[in-house]
């Protein structure tokens, strides 16, 4: 049977050459193609924050709570790709991302992506997850939209009826995403201890003392933290962390110069990531995660020196593959297209 099916698939692909049969089927059923999804519904969570309910196309494999996906959407006709954490539980019927307006792409997703839009969607990846089956007493430290991976974990515990002994400290300014749902979870599950600190009215900030006061046994818990780089730099505990965008090292000795990418020549200040430099000059390099994970934006260094902005390390070996999204030029640089 399997052989017959694969024979049929082979003949079908020959019959559609140079396309594939799915290219024709997708005229009426767009989701037969892999790496895409349709926006099925939208839900406003707070001002500038919207949840998109997605229906993934063929080939989607479920995620683990806490993982993220790369989503591509057309902005001014150009496909822009960004990474978003999945907020829904893998056990839930719907795949959801909750997006806060932060830049051009998130604004397009929140404000200009109506129900029915087809967007591109990668498989889920990421290690900010809770090991399956092992007993765990987590401490969640989250801020702002950093709540999303933890929301996926909490929803999963609730759906499975396996809510462990959880301590959760969440910082938000004015509008708390998932406010009602978080409080309902805390009310329904006595083992889920939630503290929400609204930093617009509450002067308390994340310190060891505050943590000791709110979660006296914090040192014996497994800590997970997700939020802006500022929060992660101040963590009073060892934690597994997740951050939106690469964590960048400070550049003390930026060397401006000329960057040659293919035929284009761009002026660099020595600290702007090459991907942003190219996009600001109107080029459209291929890219994916924009945080140094997926290697979609790799190009070859022909001459000169670049700096890996995550570590500050210099790369000057011609022929090395470098990542445009996390490297800046250091002086004059030539890159292959």
């Amino acid at each position, binding site marked *: 049977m399997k052989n017959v099916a694969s024979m049929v698939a082979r*003949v079908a692909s*020959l*019959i*559609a*050459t*140079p*396309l594939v049969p799915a*290219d*024709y089927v997708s*005229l009426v059923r767009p989701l037969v193609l892999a790496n895409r999804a349709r926006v099925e519904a939208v839900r406003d969570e707070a001002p500038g924050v919207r949840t998109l309910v997605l229906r993934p196309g063929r080939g989607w494999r479920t995620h683990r709570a806490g993982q993220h996906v790369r989503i591509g959407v*057309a902005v*001014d*006709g*150009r*496909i*822009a790709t960004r990474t978003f954490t999945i907020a829904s539980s893998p056990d839930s019927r719907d795949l959801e991302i909750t997006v806060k307006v932060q830049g051009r792409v998130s604004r397009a997703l929140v404000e200009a992506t109506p129900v029915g839009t087809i967007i591109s969607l990668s498989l889920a990846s990421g290690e900010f997850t809770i090991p399956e089956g092992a007993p765990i007493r987590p401490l969640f430290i989250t801020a702002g939209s950093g709540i999303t991976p933890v929301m996926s974990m909490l929803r999963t515990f609730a759906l499975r009826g396996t809510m462990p002994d959880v301590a959760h400290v969440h910082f938000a300014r004015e509008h708390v995403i998932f406010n009602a749902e978080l409080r309902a979870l805390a009310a329904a599950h006595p083992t889920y201890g939630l503290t929400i600190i609204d930093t617009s009215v509450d002067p308390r900030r994340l310190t060891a003392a505050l943590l000791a006061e709110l979660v006296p046994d914090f040192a014996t818990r497994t800590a997970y933290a997700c939020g802006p780089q500022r929060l992660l730099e101040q963590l009073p505990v060892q934690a597994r962390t997740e951050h939106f965008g690469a964590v960048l090292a400070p550049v003390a000795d930026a060397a401006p110069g000329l960057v040659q990418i293919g035929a284009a020549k761009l002026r660099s200040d020595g600290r702007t990531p090459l991907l942003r430099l190219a996009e600001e000059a*109107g080029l*459209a*390099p*291929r*890219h994916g995660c924009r945080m140094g994970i997926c290697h979609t934006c790799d190009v070859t260094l022909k001459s000169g020196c670049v700096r890996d902005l995550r570590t500050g390390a210099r790369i000057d070996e011609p022929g090395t593959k470098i990542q445009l999204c996390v490297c800046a030029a250091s002086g004059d640089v030539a890159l292959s297209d």
Partner: protein
Amino acid sequence: MTTQDIEAFGRELDIIQRDVVASLGDSDRHYIRRAITVQRSLALGGRLVIFASLPLLATPLFVPVIALGTLSLGVAKILENMEIGHNILHGQWDWMADPQIHSSTWEWDNVCPADQWKHSHNVMHHTWTNVIGKDRDVGYDILRVTDKQPWKPVYLLQPVYNVVLAFLFQWGVAMHDIDLGALRRKELSVDDVRPLLRGIAKKAGKQLVKDYVLWPLLAGPFFLPVLLANLVANGMRNLWSYAIIFCGHFPDGAQTFSTMSIEGETRGEWYRRQVLGSCNISGGPLFHVMSGNLSHQIEHHLFPDMPSNRYPQIAPKVEALCATYGIHYNKGSFARQLGTTMRTILRLALPSRARKLAVAA
């Protein structure tokens, strides 16, 4: 024209291009995506209508229905090769950064492999437009289309093989990257072009199996009508693309250049050569789309990677600019451009009596 004039002309063209690039956006993306959707619907719909005609074989309805299906498939193949394939392979849509619609990954419904086309056409023809000895599109190594090409006895036969080329045009396109002249002069050996031939064989094999084996087989006992319908659809595409493409650089008034004359060419002079060597065809919006906007050959040669839907918008500006700077802008009806091209091919089959030199503007 003074050197300053030519450079000023070039700068004005640069501004036209910059303005278009700056304004590219969602509506352009919708245009190419809609073109692809329409094309695929016509292709699939055409094939289904051809199949629907088969049970009607014994009725008077058979001929009109199969003709309709064949027409739809032929139009789809024309759109696919011209407005979609040719233009995507030029990188006109790469600015969208859409992996589905990108010159680096696109393959077209033609026996010519896309990678070979991108070299022979985008690199050789568009860089060296109408430079004799450099641009193989000047007669495609087999036709004499300007009296600057020395006459040889074989050209006596060109009125005949010109017609053969028209019917088999995609095969001419497939052989395009193989330097027949260099092979004849023994500068290249068959071994040198073997990788290219292998690429063509692989691509052509798939194309032939699709149209002349698998689709006809699906029709079972009606194998032959389906095969013939596909043959006619491919033939329509061949004749149409031949006609449009031959109107690009061969009509009366199009100029050719020598390698000497382009030495040290500036950007402005390059632009001027593209205008003088190219010819536009007048027509309505549907005609322009069906020609892949190669009816705006001049604009296409000035800006080969500009999305084709923008050529009609900039054409009046380019024409006005050419008038201002006194550069001949060759525009004519389809009948005029094709008619003078065919007359040239017939006339140049015979040796030229008196050598007439084209006067440069």
